[in-house]
């Protein structure tokens, strides 16, 4: 599914920033924070990153798929093609809710 759509699987994202840093168009913005989680039986709490926002600016994106390739957790994936058109450039920045996979890759 080349040149289709890049979807985010939110649950798999660890906010590692790799996609953001590798994107040649600088079109991904990610905001996150850490929380301490104590798992049952663990001696010390561990730090976990929580994803606050994840935006792809589709007015800049060249659908090269570098972000998909570099993601170590497969949190980004090609998805069913969506024809993105807009009367407003800001509307082409898609957030977590709009980036969800359609399930038909």
């Amino acid at each position, binding site marked *: 599914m080349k040149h289709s759509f890049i979807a985010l699987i939110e649950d798999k994202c660890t906010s590692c920033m790799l996609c953001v840093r590798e994107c040649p168009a600088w079109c991904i913005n990610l905001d996150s924070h850490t929380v301490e989680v104590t798992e049952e039986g663990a001696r010390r709490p561990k730090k976990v990153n929580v994803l606050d926002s994840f935006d792809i600016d589709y007015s800049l*994106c060249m659908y090269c798929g570098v972000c998909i390739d570099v993601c170590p957790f497969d949190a980004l994936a090609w998805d069913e093609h969506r024809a993105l058109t807009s009367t407003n450039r800001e509307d082409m920045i898609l957030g977590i809710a709009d980036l969800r996979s359609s399930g038909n890759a």
Partner: protein
Amino acid sequence: MPRYALTSEPRVCVEIVSAALACCTLELQAALGSGVLVESTELDASPSVIVIAGTVTDALVPSVMQLIRAHPGVKVMSFGACATSGGPYWDSPPVSKGIDQFVEVATYVAGCPPRPDAFIQAISDLACSEDA
């Protein structure tokens, strides 16, 4: 100006001027030849659309503006990442960072290049919004 109608809605008619600047133009041609748009002989063609397809370098801006001014009232479609924001050439000194710096854009089409169906959707959205 070539005049087209939507096959699904023959009443909706558009005039399309294409500013063929780079590779996006090929995808535009594919869309025009896809059968969804047919050449129309209807005279009262409603919205005139000018499609800026491809990379606009600073040196080309005056020519693009001249083309747009030659068609008063025309709606500008920014077709593809380059025309919208510079796209893959966003960091290149001679490339302008989006035609919306110079002219009001009626519709943006994402993609590098956008697929033909994105163009068809943008054209029908434009045509129908005019109709309403």
